[in-house]
């Protein structure tokens, strides 16, 4: 119990360091880089008086240290100020509204990617494909090397514009099918990585003595796989999903833009285009924080099941 607690605490601290580093870099980028944020927000036509008012509203007239403490306090209390473009709406609230669709997209993608990847690896390890089981590896390698940015628009063109099986990008009535298609695209590279890692992990386990014993006792392939091999191979699979989260986040932004879906990516783009600095800060820091904590959670889960990684 104490061990589990120690691992969890260690990973929590790691995630915290990543978040504080990201937040500080975001803070510095918007304040230390040359150029007056107030001028960026208001444009060149604004009068000096308007700019001074905005600077006061964004607390840009205080010292850097005072701004930083305010910023950190805002992070902890989820209060990073009001949206500049939509007065009266808090920045954090807008981020929260946008986070749900993105979470749906990414969550479904992780689920599909992990399922398909593990299934492909089992198909490659099992007796069904015979001499052709190398195909699984080759396909996974090819797919893992293909950037989402290259195949997502082409697949969308083929399936939405030519074959008309899925809704076109930007279709407001895309509904569940649109969500499933977008998550499917996002899941493809993930499933390739999961398949490669699980293939290697299952191969590793296959040479272990306990599998030989289980098989010698007369366990069927399914029983040996389910009860003995998969649990032993779970660690690397969890880790690779964690390691792919960064790509998943970037991919979600790309796909939201491609399909014109509402979400964190769209919010960040909108905040960028309209220079809504509080919303931009909040969106980046909170999605970064979520990302870091889930990633460390995956690492902690691996460390708890597998004593070798500690």
């Amino acid at each position, binding site marked *: 119990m104490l061990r589990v607690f120690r691992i969890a605490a260690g990973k929590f601290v790691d995630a915290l360091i990543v978040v504080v580093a990201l937040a500080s*870099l975001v803070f510095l980028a918007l304040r230390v880089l040359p150029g007056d944020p107030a001028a960026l927000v208001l444009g060149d036509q604004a009068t000096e008086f308007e700019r001074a008012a905005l600077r006061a509203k964004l607390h840009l007239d205080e010292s850097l240290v005072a701004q930083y403490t305010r910023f950190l306090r805002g992070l902890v209390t989820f209060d990073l100020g009001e949206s500049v473009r939509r007065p009266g709406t808090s920045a954090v609230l807008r981020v929260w509204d946008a986070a749900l669709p993105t979470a749906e997209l990414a969550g479904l993608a992780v689920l599909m990617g992990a399922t398909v990847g593990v299934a492909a690896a089992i198909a490659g390890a099992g007796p069904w494909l015979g001499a052709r089981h190398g195909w699984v590896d080759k396909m996974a390698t090819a797919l893992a090397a293909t950037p989402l940015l290259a195949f997502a628009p082409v697949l969308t063109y083929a399936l939405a514009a030519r074959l008309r099986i899925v809704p076109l990008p930007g279709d407001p009535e895309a509904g569940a099918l649109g969500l499933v298609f977008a998550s499917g695209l996002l899941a493809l590279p993930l499933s390739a990585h999961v398949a490669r890692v699980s293939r290697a992990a299952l191969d590793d386990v296959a040479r272990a003595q306990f599998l030989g014993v289980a098989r010698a006792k007369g366990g069927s392939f399914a029983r040996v796989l389910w009860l003995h091999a998969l649990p032993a191979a779970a660690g690397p699979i969890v880790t690779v999903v964690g390691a792919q989260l960064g790509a998943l986040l970037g991919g979600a932004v790309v796909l939201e833009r491609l399909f014109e879906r509402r979400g964190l990516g769209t919010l960040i783009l909108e905040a960028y285009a309209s220079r809504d600095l509080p919303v931009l800060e909040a969106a980046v820091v909170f999605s970064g924080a979520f990302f870091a904590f889930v990633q460390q959670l995956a690492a902690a889960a691996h460390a708890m099941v597998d004593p070798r990684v500690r």
Partner: protein
Amino acid sequence: MTRASEKRRRRSVVARVLPLALVISVTTVVALGPRSPTRLVPALSWAPPSLSFPLGCGEAGGDLLALVAHATLRGIALASSVALIGFSIGCPLGAAAGLLRGRVEQIIARACDLVQAFPSFLLALVVLSAVRVPTRAHLAVVFALTAWAPFTRLALAQTRVLRDAAFVEAARALGARSTRIVLRHVIPNLLGVVAVQLGATAAAIVVSEAALSFVGFGTRDGVALGAVLDQGVSAMLRAPHVLLVGAASVFVTSVSLMVAGRAFDK
């Protein structure tokens, strides 16, 4: 010659030829091509490929061949410079950490873990929005912030093996200083492993740059692979060739860079 080794030989020929062919053809188009990537001929908007415009035209009649060639060249330049920066910071750092052992080694290894867990895509978004006119130099700085970590990690792992090797011990016994050992004995032995990482890093950066320009965070001139894709998506029904050209060029560029790294690994 066995079939397997024949296959491997053929693959290594591809590995050398594909990236070279890409760079040479792209440079030729950039140097000798008759048209500028930003020149627009509105009459030719979304024109399909023809003899005088081999890849067709994009939004407002920009020549896609010129656009893709310039964008690819700039993307490769950005990616290889960031990969080289990461390499020249990461390798000595990792090698030094491995030789110094103890505290330093632990701290650097942990720093690598943390930096590799860093969402650099998000950071790039913020830095690009904080500057008035985003350029590739800004992108290079953002990517370089995290690009060194995988090199350090590889160099550290390799140095842990090398530091007890007989030739390193011999060099030390002959009185060589640490700098000399790192430069003359450790780093040359790292290069094979690290070259693969150079290719992988460069490929990842080309794709990130294209992704950033696709979502609208690119440089202002619109000469980027992602900008071509963006045009293609918006005119998916009218002019599908733009989308196919954009997707193919992202794919070919990233695979070439990845393959180029593998070519050095014997």
